[in-house]
């Protein structure tokens, strides 16, 4: 099986302050989805990204936050094992980001052998 990365993207919501129960519920939804992938033995690793960030430009300029010039931000990623891109895409079904107005980008991971 090959490795694929799913990148979760959505429009930034800097003012969104979820209630603790909403947070809990959201964590459960994510964990149930990831757990379903792991139950198939196809889980690699995952990380959720936070809300602080800085962007470095080629001229050395640094801007605050990932929001400045983009319409959407990366909220996190998961690495999964799948036979091919379609297999990986099937795993993306049910991803909670899809119910939050976002989308999942599925990419193959290149093996670089130095």
């Amino acid at each position, binding site marked *: 099986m090959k490795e694929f990365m799913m990148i979760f993207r959505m429009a930034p919501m800097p003012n969104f302050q979820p209630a603790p129960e909403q947070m809990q519920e959201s964590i459960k939804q994510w964990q149930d989805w990831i*757990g*379903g992938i792991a*139950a*198939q*033995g196809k*889980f690699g690793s995952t990380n959720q990204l936070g809300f602080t960030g800085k962007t470095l430009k080629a001229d050395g300029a640094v801007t605050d936050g990932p929001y400045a010039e983009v319409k959407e931000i990366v909220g996190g990623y998961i690495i999964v094992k799948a036979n091919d891109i379609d297999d990986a895409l099937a795993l993306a079904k049910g991803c909670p980001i899809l119910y939050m107005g976002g989308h999942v980008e599925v990419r193959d991971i290149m093996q670089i052998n130095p």
Partner: protein
Amino acid sequence: MLSRNDELIPHLFRTEFRKIVSVLANVFGLQHIEVAEDITSDTFLLAAETWGKKGIPENPTAWLCTVAKNKTKDYLKRNQIFQQKVTTALQRTTEQLTEMEIDLTPENIMDSQLQMMFALCHPSIPVESQIGLSLRILCGFGIDEIADAFLSNKETINKRLFRAKEKLREENVSMDFPTEVELEKRLYAVVTTLYLLFNEGYYSASQNTSLRKDLCLEALRLTYLLTAHKTTNQPFVNALIALMCFHSSRFEARINAEGELILYEEQDRSLWNKELIEKGEEYLNRSATGERITKFHLEAAIAYWHTQTENHHEKWSNILQLYNQLLQLEYSPAAALNRTYALAKANGYANAINEALKLKLENNHLYFSLLGELYKEVNPTKAAEYFSIAIKKAKTEKDKLLLQRKMNECK
């Protein structure tokens, strides 16, 4: 008197064998573990004879230690070749060795047992050999008992243990305590072996119920030993004790008088051992320190929720989340199946059926049994079909009977 002996000697054998054999092996070096075993066995043989005639001494442990000490000295005097080997290895003169006091203080007994655990669970030998050796040396089990537990025969077990000891010699494994750098890894290996030893007793297909209980109890005792030492009293060791306590609490409820397994949902909950559940909770709390969440933590927490009878939804919702985490840490077919069952209980059967069909564990009879279970309410005909596939795939008569009963309930 004899009947008291019959009970006392096997009990002492379980707890004292490892002490004496470990202390002696520490003196001779692990290379000569058989000599330590022989002397220890001889000591117990003499105990059985003497106590049968004269009654049990006031302090049986001290008696056993003294006899073992004398037997060791006799052995060294008699056996010149062995003496030379050991004296060379230990760089001691023959005189020093025969005069040597064998340290039987509680501290040395405790340290030697721990050192022996690390030596026998050395990663250079296969896990099933580690379990076999642990049963023999650390739990004082007879070869026939080990054979019974593994559903094997004496010859196979003897060969396996012999080969394992050879390997330990080849690899030059010593009784030395692991270095600080190695400790966590080696301790994890020891704990994994104890976990498997417990499972061997808990899930074994052996019909011998009391032997299976003994296996679990011994695994618990050995894990408990690890908590006595500061360096080995790690959070995940405590988590394993919690797990063992929670599982053991259902011992009386999960097996009937005929030795048949009673499923969790059908158990008489008044038979669950409250004392063990409380002990488990105590150790689960102790395990909740440090940075690292291990599979022992997660499995202990799952087992904790299984001891709860109230609040159905909260219980299964928590179990599901714990299985989600466990599978991310380490995939196993059993965890995948159990996770899907928890999913049905927490989020509904339709959802779980959908997820179950993705598991693709067609070689596992429990997979079809799970599908049967999930379809039971929504589509009994389909459920019966799945149970019938499970029956064909099941390996033991006991499993087949249980599944047959489930299938009959679908009509």
